[in-house]
């Protein structure tokens, strides 16, 4: 169950992250604010270039030049992460907040045995002995459903299948009991039957230990079936957020609606979205979705719609009074 009463585990306020490139200043994340509560599973969705991965990396303190967080607060358990030194932040990663990257092969060291990779992480934050590290690693590998974990610990990354590698990376991310896990497309590229096994396992583990997760993905099905809440991003902004049971059934923002309608369903006409995402360098005035929106009207051109409440715990950024939930009534 999600803890409703206490302060949020993670609170992001007005985050702006930009990249200086030869083409100009890329406004990757443009003023986003959201919260994650203890034990909550939140899906961060959007298409290529919407800023979801940059958001995740901003929270993890992994933005390096030419990228920079230029504004905003990132409060984790009440502390502003932007005030931390690099060393303090390093201490937090793995124990408070951990990261599961998209490509497990990129995260595993090819020349170190798996047990050593676990030990490196554990010893970076604790004084555990070699035996204690072994025991913790073994237990963790069993929790993520790996059969014969001793053999895996003694082995190397290249000996693992895609699904196994992803389980190992998850296990390393969970071994120090972080309160928040940020996963960036953790099952993309895996076979769907393996993906299901892994998602079922991870979600069960998270719920059992009441860990929160920020799941960054483009797969709406994963979010709909495993997450409590969803945040939809477009062109560096949050356009909608709320409980999955409401947002996916009755979307308020035209983009959310268009995204759901674009999922192929037999017997239904395919509804495609015209146009393209706007440039993040020549960022448009007004609403970034205006050129592709069937409901655009006068204010959309010059005035940026701010994120506001539709109802309790539901927010959206659109000039339509109730978004598209009431047939676009203005």
């Amino acid at each position, binding site marked *: 169950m999600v803890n409703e009463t206490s302060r949020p585990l993670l609170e992001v306020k007005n985050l702006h992250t930009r990249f200086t490139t030869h083409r100009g200043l890329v406004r990757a994340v443009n003023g986003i604010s959201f919260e994650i509560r203890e034990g909550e599973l939140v899906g961060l969705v959007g*298409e*290529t270039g919407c800023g979801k991965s940059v958001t995740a990396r901003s929270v993890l303190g992994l933005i390096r030049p030419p990228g920079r967080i230029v504004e905003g607060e990132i409060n984790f358990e009440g502390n502003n992460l932007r005030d931390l030194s690099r060393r303090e932040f390093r201490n937090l990663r793995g124990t408070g907040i951990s990261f599961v990257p998209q490509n497990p092969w990129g995260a595993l060291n090819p020349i170190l045995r798996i047990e050593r990779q676990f030990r490196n992480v554990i010893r970076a934050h604790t004084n555990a002995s070699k035996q204690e590290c072994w025991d913790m690693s073994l237990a963790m590998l069993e929790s993520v459903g790996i059969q014969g974990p001793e053999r895996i610990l003694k082995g190397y990354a290249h000996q693992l*299948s*895609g*699904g*196994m590698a992803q389980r190992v990376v998850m296990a390393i991310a969970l071994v120090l009991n972080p309160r928040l896990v940020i996963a960036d497309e953790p099952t993309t590229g895996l*076979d*769907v*039957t*393996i*993906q*299901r*096994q892994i998602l*079922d396992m991870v979600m069960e583990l998270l719920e059992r230990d009441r860990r929160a997760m920020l799941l960054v993905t*483009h*797969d*709406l*099905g*994963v*979010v*709909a*079936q495993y997450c409590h809440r969803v945040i939809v991003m477009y062109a560096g902004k949050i356009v909608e957020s709320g409980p*999955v*049971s409401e947002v*996916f*059934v009755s979307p308020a923002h035209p983009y959310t609606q*268009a*995204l*759901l309608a*674009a*999922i*192929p*369903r*037999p017997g239904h006409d*395919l*509804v*495609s*979205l015209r146009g*393209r995402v706007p440039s993040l360098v020549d960022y448009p005035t007004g609403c970034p979705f205006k050129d592709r929106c069937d409901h655009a009207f006068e204010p959309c051109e010059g005035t940026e719609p701010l994120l506001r409440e539709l109802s309790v715990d539901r927010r959206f950024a659109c000039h339509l009074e109730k978004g598209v939930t009431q047939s676009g009534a203005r």
Partner: protein
Amino acid sequence: MVNAVNGVSFEIEAGETVALIGESGSGKSTIARLALRLYELNQGTVEFDGRDLTKLDREELRHLRSAMTIVFQEPYESLNPRQRIGRTIEEPLVIHHPDMSAADRHARVIDTLNHVALGENFYDRFPHELSGGQQQRVGIARAIVTRPKFIVLDEPTSSLDLSVRAQILQLLNDLQDEFNLAYLFISHDIHTVEYVSDRICVMYLGQIVEVGPTAEVFANPQHPYTQALLSSSLSADPRVKKDRFLLGGEIPSATNLPPGCFLHGRCPIGDDACAAAHVPLHAFKGTHEVACVKVPFAGGGS
């Protein structure tokens, strides 16, 4: 030795879309290339328009290649980054229609660009100037410029964003209607396959485990692997609860195939009888066929 494809047979009629669905190691991409004889077959035949591709010499085969083309999964990887779009689309004409004048070729390329909803001003651009969706339109344009009869589509929308996928699927649909094209559509995405295909072959470790009209197979899946595959699909509608997932274990290596049924060991209903011998496809209902000893034959009995 990797046993990529192990005794696969199917047919595609003009104007029809047959989908191959499966996961890693299923052999679907290999079949896509075998169908065009881009790989050599160890055994078997591929007949196109009544002619066996495996018996043709290089010249004859090349000539046929204007009638059977392919669209790849990664739009950017499939385009020559140093060649302008117009030239890329023109290339098949240069190879297959040396009799065409430059002016005629140019006109055909422009016409083809219009068919894929890219304007004339794309002619002089380079691939890196285009979005993923536009690049894939170029890949499709190149595949239709010779007015083929048959196109192999190898995961044509898997690398594209959701909102762009719909555009491309719609385009493929329109082109099929206009030119009466036959499609072999390879995919791992159940939603896409269900939407685009008339018939479907479900593949596992180089074999077809189930085949039939798409609507029928999806409504009434018989093979445990098909059931597992369909149950792994996650609906974006949170009211539709995901099914209990049925398949444990990992996909075995294609270099070390188990004897008997390939799913044995992972299958929820398998037993020792399944490990004994290879299981051929048998008719379950009409043209719906299954390769599983536990599934009754058409007309009752097993």
